[in-house]
């Protein structure tokens, strides 16, 4: 199994000299099995380059792409209209995301290319596009890849995915807040909880169960890709924005016995040098607990080979 990072940024793309090394494109990760099954997680602006690569190889016109969507906030879908394989006959794209009671998945994607936002309406794309809506905690197979899902703690709700193939497992956990201070559902959370505010017992229990689900999803994973957008200071200031700190990811990975953690969904304001520093301190903190957890910071273009003990 090969895991390739095409976009590692959260919120919005951030071009410029200060993001040159880690990359400025929004979330997109590609997973390929040894037999050639291609599963892409999220369609931020990073997916544009994957599309160019696919269109440029002999695969154009025969591509079969499975796209798992964590949630439909812009930074996880905004690259799709610029994904070249959509506009080539013969390609197949299957989109998966959590089922909602208010909107069908297709409508969410089709609206993105509606007039007046985009010049080419969804109905005019050339590829064969299918949508599959998933219940929470869904389990299914995509060819030789086994998929499992868990619910995350994020405004309007997001889904984590576990992908297992070739004897290796990668888990994508983005976007999520820690499972402690606020329970996110569909409603907008306008402000952080006041000092000393107690979570209702029911919310607390729901968060505990949610966290257990995520730890279980990460159980024994070779690689966990985790939303670590926030510094501890960010989290203190804006806990109601729905993102985690590196320490939250380390705790989940340790408890799950995961081998490797990739810090992911870097904040738009984070410079390359700051990500270096965060990576260094996260490594020290993980090591200080006596954990063998290996920590990396995802960067655009990084390929991790998880097949048969390689890394």
């Amino acid at each position, binding site marked *: 199994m090969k895991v390739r990072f095409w976009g590692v*940024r959260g*919120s*919005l*793309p*951030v*071009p*410029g*000299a200060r*993001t*040159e090394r880690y*990359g*400025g*494109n929004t979330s997109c990760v590609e997973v390929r099995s040894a037999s050639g099954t291609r599963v892409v997680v999220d369609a931020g*602006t990073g997916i*544009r380059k994957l599309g160019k690569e696919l269109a440029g190889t002999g695969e154009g016109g025969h591509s079969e792409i499975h796209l798992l969507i964590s949630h*439909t*906030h*812009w930074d996880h*879908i*905004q*690259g799709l*209209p*610029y994904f070249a394989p959509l506009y080539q006959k013969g390609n197949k794209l299957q989109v998966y995301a959590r089922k*909602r009671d*208010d*909107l069908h998945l297709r409508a*969410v994607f089709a*609206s993105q290319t509606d*007039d*007046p*936002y*985009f*010049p080419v309406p969804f109905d005019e794309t050339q590829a064969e596009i299918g949508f599959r809506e998933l219940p929470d905690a869904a389990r299914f197979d995509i060819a030789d890849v086994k998929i499992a899902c868990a619910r995350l703690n994020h*405004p*309007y709700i997001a889904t984590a995915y576990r992908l297992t193939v070739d004897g290796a497992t990668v888990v994508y956990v983005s976007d999520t807040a820690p499972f402690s201070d606020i329970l996110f559902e*569909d409603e*907008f959370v*306008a402000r952080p909880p006041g000092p000393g505010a107690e979570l209702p017992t029911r919310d607390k229990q729901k968060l505990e169960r949610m966290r257990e689900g995520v730890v279980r999803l990460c159980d024994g994973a070779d690689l966990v890709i985790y939303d670590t957008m926030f510094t501890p200071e960010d989290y203190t200031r804006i806990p109601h*924005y*729905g993102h985690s700190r590196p320490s939250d990811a380390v705790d989940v990975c340790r408890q799950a016995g995961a081998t490797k953690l990739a810090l992911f969904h870097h904040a*738009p304001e984070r410079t390359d040098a700051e990500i270096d520093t965060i990576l260094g301190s996260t490594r020290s903190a993980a090591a200080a607990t006596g954990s063998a957890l290996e920590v990396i910071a995802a960067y*655009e273009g990084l390929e991790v080979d998880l097949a048969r003990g390689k890394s």
Partner: protein
Amino acid sequence: MEISFWGVRGSIPAPGPATVRYGGNTSCVSLRPSGNDGRLIVLDCGTGARNLGNMLMEGPFGQGKGEASILLSHAHWDHIQGFPFFVPLYQPGNKFHIFGGAKSSALLEGILEGQMAPQYFPVQTLKNMGATIDISAIAEGTPFQVERCAVRARTNPHGRAGALAFRIEDAGRSVVYASDAGYGPEGPPAASLDLYRGADVLIHDSTYTPEDRKRYAPRGFSSVEDAVAAAVAAAVKRLVLFHYDQDYSDSEVDALLARGRRLLDERGGKSIELVGAIEGSTLKI
């Protein structure tokens, strides 16, 4: 007047080492009329608006005492996608006047609301943003006042859609913003040339080389050649190339600029100054 460029790219932000010099953010330009009295006009809200907003928060906008006007050429993503990340909009007390092309002000508001909807953005609605926002559809051709400047707008053809071009006049100086213009074979329509006529600065769509323009004609963008033709026909003083294709590297934009200079010299525009828009740069007139 001071013109600052915050995003100069077309279609989709283009991060990476190849775009570091000209910049990879999508369209956003700010105008400070003369007098240094805090007046501010923002032209389009591509991802460049994020950096503009962050800079503004260091001044009165950070205390909820800012006021500015935003002119939107059209609502394709690369011209509005920075709006949700424009931080001064979240500061109560700030006031924003938004103008754009739509059949009614309510429809324009609906277009901006569409981007904020819960399935796409956690803030869920403009109403949660904090600042006071009023939204007005523009009546084309009729001059109106924005930040005490005289403004006129005209629709340029842009693929299947149209995009407004704006002429902003202040203290005897004039700036024209004409992004996303895909003229027919006959070149810019008379109404557009009338809008551009004699401008001190014409910021013009120059997405493509003439060759790429031919390949991608239905997309409705200008080549550097189209921009030169408009500048010469309207006898402007300075032409600013803008809205570069997302796949053009810095050296390709250098070449686009050199080609623009050559074309201007060959086609009667020797006296027209040529500038390539660079993210983070400011022009004074």
